[in-house]
């Protein structure tokens, strides 16, 4: 039996790695992928808790998270395409029209 804590610690590590990628990467698509990584880490925690408590409610929520993540990916990538065409670059640091 794998103790629930192990899953939770793994979830925390994955989440932290997602944060690192979110802060350090410069390509906007990679940043988006880091967001997906964070969502996945959270899903893992949900399922782990669902297993520990013996109820299926956690898994239902995981389904919802996946649905929302998919919708978000669709719209977000649409925006990224437009922005990339506009600024002619995928570097997030080039999107700086608000800089003084």
């Amino acid at each position: 039996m794998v103790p629930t804590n192990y899953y939770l610690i793994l979830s925390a590590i994955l989440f932290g790695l997602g944060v690192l990628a979110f802060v350090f990467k410069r390509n906007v698509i990679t940043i988006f992928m880091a967001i997906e990584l964070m969502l996945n880490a959270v899903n893992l925690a949900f399922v782990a808790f669902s297993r520990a408590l013996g109820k299926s409610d956690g898994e239902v929520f995981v389904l919802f998270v996946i649905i929302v993540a998919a919708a978000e990916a669709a719209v977000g990538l649409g925006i990224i395409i437009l922005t990339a065409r506009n600024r002619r670059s995928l570097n997030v640091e080039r999107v700086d029209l608000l800089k003084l």
Partner: protein
Amino acid sequence: MTASVIIFFVLAALAVLASVSLILQRHPIHSALSLIVVMVALAGLYLLMGAEFVAAVQIIVYGGAVMVLFVFVIMLLNAGEEERTNFSKLATFGGIPLALALSGMIAAGIARSSSQLATSPATAEGAISSTRQLSMLLFKDFVYPFELTSFLILIAILGAIVLAQREN
């Protein structure tokens, strides 16, 4: 050291290594492929925990639809290797401590929380969630959020179409 634990560690190591690879790779397509590996590993973990339906959905939707979308976009935009710009000092110096703080806090919270959760026995593997049970929950108790999410997807589709239109 039961078999479950070994499988867990293998899959966990795979996920972590793939995540590290996502950070370290220079070309976005390599990052995308690393992310796919993470997703598959997580699907494996779900199977280990006995949540088959979720594992299946993970692979089909995440791996098969979302990541494919990512790869398409990368190719569409002809993304090349990342530029080495570094305009934000805050991000450079603050990033690692923040990430450590965040995960440390979560880990500490986990460690401090009630121990009975840590070693609770799962019901027999595979028995916690038959798909039937899951569908009962989804379509009875959570039917309202379910319908809302279908509405959400509709909006997302519309949004994507509007965004991707060419200027006339």
